[in-house]
């Protein structure tokens, strides 16, 4: 109940302000352009591929790059989307107001988190127009589309949770988004060290398991693994729990 009231208020704020519209619009525009780029690439090369009997999955050529690019864009999109959730309330003093209601911190965090997730879902659902459009002219590998979307949902879910954490830590939206971006980027590059160390060393293996790339990439190849799903969900839960802790600890500080 508390969760829904908070989520509804946040969604109103998202869609009444230009923020959500601009962000969703810009993302779709950018990805639309990338889709057209893939389409052009496909059109130019398709005759050659068929001439030499190269087996090509059009979904892989047309749609996979778009989804992979969204995964990258999320590095920027998630902090921008979630930065205001707590930071603005702290700055304007309305956080105290919310905390004076008989609503616990968990509902507060989940309500805010859900609202950002809904905005992100609008992006993902709008993007389904691409496979639908593709299906007009050919066969779409819906399994791959589904797996890509699942990967994006999990990764986006984690990124938004970390964005929320950044927001809970600061009263300035700018600081919040920079902190969240730092966290996300760290997660993005943590696997690079694993590559340098190689798979045989202990730390190499640990860092590989911790790496975002290691867990996210298979989804874009149509591989849905339970282990990676657990990786995303547990990190998301951890980030949200840290948000709750930050809110609770606020009472003991200034």
């Amino acid at each position, binding site marked *: 109940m508390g969760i829904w009231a908070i989520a509804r*208020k946040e969604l*109103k*704020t998202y869609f009444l302000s230009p923020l959500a519209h601009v962000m969703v619009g810009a993302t779709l525009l950018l990805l639309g352009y990338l889709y057209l780029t893939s389409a052009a690439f496909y059109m130019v090369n398709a005759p050659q591929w068929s001439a030499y009997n190269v087996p090509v999955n059009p979904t892989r050529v047309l749609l996979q790059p778009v989804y992979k690019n969204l995964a990258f864009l999320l590095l920027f999109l998630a902090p921008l989307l979630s930065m205001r959730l707590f930071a603005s309330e702290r700055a304007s003093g309305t956080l*105290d107001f919310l*905390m*004076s*209601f*008989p609503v616990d911190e968990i509902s507060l965090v989940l309500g805010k988190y859900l609202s950002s997730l809904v905005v992100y879902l609008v992006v993902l659902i709008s993007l389904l127009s691409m496979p639908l459009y593709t299906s007009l002219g050919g066969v779409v590998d819906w399994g791959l589309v589904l797996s890509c979307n699942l990967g994006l949902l999990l990764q986006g879910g984690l990124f938004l949770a970390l964005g929320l954490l950044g927001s809970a830590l600061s009263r300035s939206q700018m600081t919040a988004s920079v902190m969240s971006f730092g966290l996300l980027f760290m997660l993005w590059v943590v696997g690079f060290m694993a590559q340098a160390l190689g798979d045989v060393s202990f730390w190499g293996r640990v860092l590989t398991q911790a790496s975002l790339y290691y867990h996210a990439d298979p989804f874009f190849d149509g591989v849905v693994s339970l282990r990676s799903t657990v990786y995303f969900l547990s990190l998301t839960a951890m980030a949200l729990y840290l948000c709750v802790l930050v809110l609770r600890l606020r*009472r*003991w500080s200034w």
Partner: protein
Amino acid sequence: MLEVRGLCKSYGSRQVLFDVSFSVKEGEVVGFLGPNGAGKTTTMRIICGLMAPDRGYARIGGFDVLEEPRRARALLGYLPENPPIYEELTVREYLEMASQLRGLRGPSRRRAMEEAISYCGLEGVLDRLMMNLSRGYRQRAALAQAILHSPPLLVLDEPTLGLDAVQMAEVRSLIKGLKGRATVILSTHILQEVSATCDRVLVINRGSIVADDPYEVLEERLRGGIAFSVKVQGEVGPFAERLGSLEGVARVELRGEGEVLVQSRAGFDPRPEVASLAVGMGLKLYEMTPVRMSLEEVFLKLVSEEVRGDGDMGHSQEGA
């Protein structure tokens, strides 16, 4: 209704509350009065469970605000120092959200909203965005939010801060109207406010409660003796000098053109002696009028008194 015991709180090395204790009975309207930085907001925030004290506790209706926050907060309506508004929401959306967060539903929710809206006079601005509201209306909307669920306890932190005189009077009359409907504790650094609205006054200074009295008693206690002005014709200088040596006179002040201000000690009324002295010195006595000490003066006195560590209220202006 509200019980506060032994609150201590430090920000870093600076202690802002020293063993603050008080309780508020059901139905009381209590003013929490103190200069800026005295610890009013900190106490209010602790009462609302927004901040944990280093020591001590606050209980609303018997529920500890930190241990049983949901039950305690359900009894509470809170108006923070800065009106908590969401600029991008309309007043109606704002109150809808607040009522949802309060868990109000269906017809009871509609009724609660209608009552709060009409009580705070918000009918005309319901569909306006809050960013376009004047400070006075923002405050009213915030107050509507606080009384929405008819809470037994209302905590109002500086409810008239930043309002102009007309808005202030409006908000005060709204608060006055709450008497009998809820227990109210309101903080302020403006004396008029407590005299206009409160039954009982808690005075806080430098993190300690320095007075806890019904308003009239506080005023009396602060006033100590009586003050009156004497208008005479003739040589005022020697008259004033002689006045100063009369028993029961605490202070004498020359006010130009034949007027002298006399402040008595507590429990003394030296007016007959003053009159006979004037006549005895061959002066023409025209007028003797009591002067009500403005409460602002009283307050300054109270606070500076405590700073000097001088507990005796009645003699504070001696030699001042």
